[in-house]
């Protein structure tokens, strides 16, 4: 056995870590939304849970469907099952996702359209918040002034997690990530005009506050609901007969 071989557990957890709560923009693994992972010869069964039974069904559905897709991409996993526990639409969402019905197929008359637009809205907000964090950091470092910000390029950002997060979010909304791309752009890639700069940054800061605050709220509620320490790790069992 060598240390470089990834265990099936880590592969599955890494896959789940790519699933984000669409509104909070944080991985479901870090939010404590993954209750358990059971691996056996048949495949893998993951149970997800949410801070309240009234979490919006459209967001819940997105997370279940994304988890399903992420796990299906892990080689040799076998049959994938993702189940949402303790939600007012658990049965509906679980059955619909298992059958690959999609959101509209799952909710029938209740769903007028798919969830792509909703997802895009939150991806755009996540991008705005990530951009604002980078801008704040370069302003705080004293390397850039407010007036110079419109000229800031990806190349100018220090290689840290703030930049990585920004690149990921840019990619998600279809922006190019070449090193001379401007940082301060709208979701259409258009640079922010100098005259709008102050107001724009202010609104971006409010977006960041809103997203961060919601994440605090959800973590606290989840801990209250399940009497867990905040950020509790999922229960993982592996009963596979082969490695």
């Amino acid at each position, binding site marked *: 056995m060598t240390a470089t071989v990834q265990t099936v557990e880590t592969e599955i957890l890494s896959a789940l870590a790519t699933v984000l709560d669409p509104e909070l923009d944080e991985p479901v693994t870090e939010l404590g939304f993954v209750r358990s992972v059971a691996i056996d010869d048949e495949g893998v069964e993951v149970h997800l849970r949410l801070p309240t*039974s009234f979490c919006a*069904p*459209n967001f819940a559905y997105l997370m279940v469907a994304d988890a399903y897709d992420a796990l299906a991409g892990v080689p040799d996993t076998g049959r994938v099952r993702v189940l949402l526990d303790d939600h007012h639409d658990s049965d509906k969402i679980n059955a619909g996702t298992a059958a690959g019905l999609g959101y509209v197929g799952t909710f029938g*008359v209740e769903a007028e*359209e798919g969830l792509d637009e909703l997802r895009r809205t939150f991806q755009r907000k996540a991008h705005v918040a990530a951009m604002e964090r980078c801008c704040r950091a370069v302003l705080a470092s004293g390397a850039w002034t407010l007036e110079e910000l419109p000229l800031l390029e990806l190349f100018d950002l220090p290689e840290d997690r703030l930049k990585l997060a920004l690149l990921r979010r840019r990619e998600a909304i279809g922006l190019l990530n070449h090193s001379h791309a401007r940082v301060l752009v709208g979701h259409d890639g258009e640079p922010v005009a100098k005259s709008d700069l102050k107001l724009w940054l202010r*609104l971006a800061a409010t977006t960041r506050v809103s997203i961060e*605050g919601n994440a605090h709220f959800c973590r*606290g*509620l989840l801990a*209250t609901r399940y009497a867990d320490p905040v950020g509790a790790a999922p229960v993982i069992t592996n009963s596979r007969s082969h490695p």
Partner: protein
Amino acid sequence: MYEKDGESYYIVDGHVHIWDGRASNHKNVHGKEFIDCFYDYHRNLSPEDVIWDYDTYTYYGAERFMKDLFAEGYVDHAIFQATLLSDFYHNGFGQTEEAFGLARQHPERLTYNHAYDPRNGEAGLEQLRRDAERFNLKGVKLYTAEWHGDSRGYKLDEPWSRRYLEECLELGITNVHVHKGPTIKPLDRDAFDVADIDKVATDYLDLNFIVEHVGLPRLEDFCWIATQESNVYGGLAVAMPFIHARPRYFAQIIGELLYWIGEDRILFGSDYALWTPKWLVEKFVDFQIPEDMPEYPAITPEQKKKILGLNAASLYGLDVPRQFRLPAASGAGV
């Protein structure tokens, strides 16, 4: 009223309930899920020494209500916000008759706001007229995300909703409280989106739109709209208790609100019995923006007075005793 450090505060609690979440009132499992969700909010965000036991929380009745608000909670006037949820509870969640009876007994202390649903069409309009007369309505509380048959929510700018808003104008109902906050059950569309407020606020300038829960978890959308519409207000119910559990987040919320919509359009609300007003009032009066958050200016006692009561008093035409008024406003009004 509340006094601290030589300052006197007139307190209007803009968001209170008498509810019945007992098992005997559950129509289905959602009735239990709903009150359990409220109880988790309560336990998650309250200081430990004011957390209730579950049974008391599901139903506390009028006597406890009066004690918690007026005997102990410093509240001078409180406004009931109706929460009917008839799909989950046999006799509704908010206890209309009990609340209205109490408001009739104590008109100087209590205002009763009822609800309507524009999806009830012409019959609902008739009902609204009767309700306006019976309850002497000055305000209504709307749940745009409430389920109704096949519908999973409505927008304020839909044609029927507009007819109801116009009827409100006719009937002298000037305060439209809209629940735009934590999820109940939106599904096919994002029923908590605040964009519909933007449209109707522009079209009905004589109505005041109070966005409850300041649009959380979409604070930035609310701020953006409220800053452009002079008749849009932010109700702090559900945002308030962060003052204890997450004070830095609370500082950010209140800092953002003061920046975007200003001190005249923010309204205190405990959301009783989610939280009791006593500790919220005490903590808010003591509250200050942390020094390491220079992006927000300090909050003044004058701003706190407006938020805790004077702003709501002005919307509801309450007679604020002279000693609580601000110097600039003392000559005006009643």
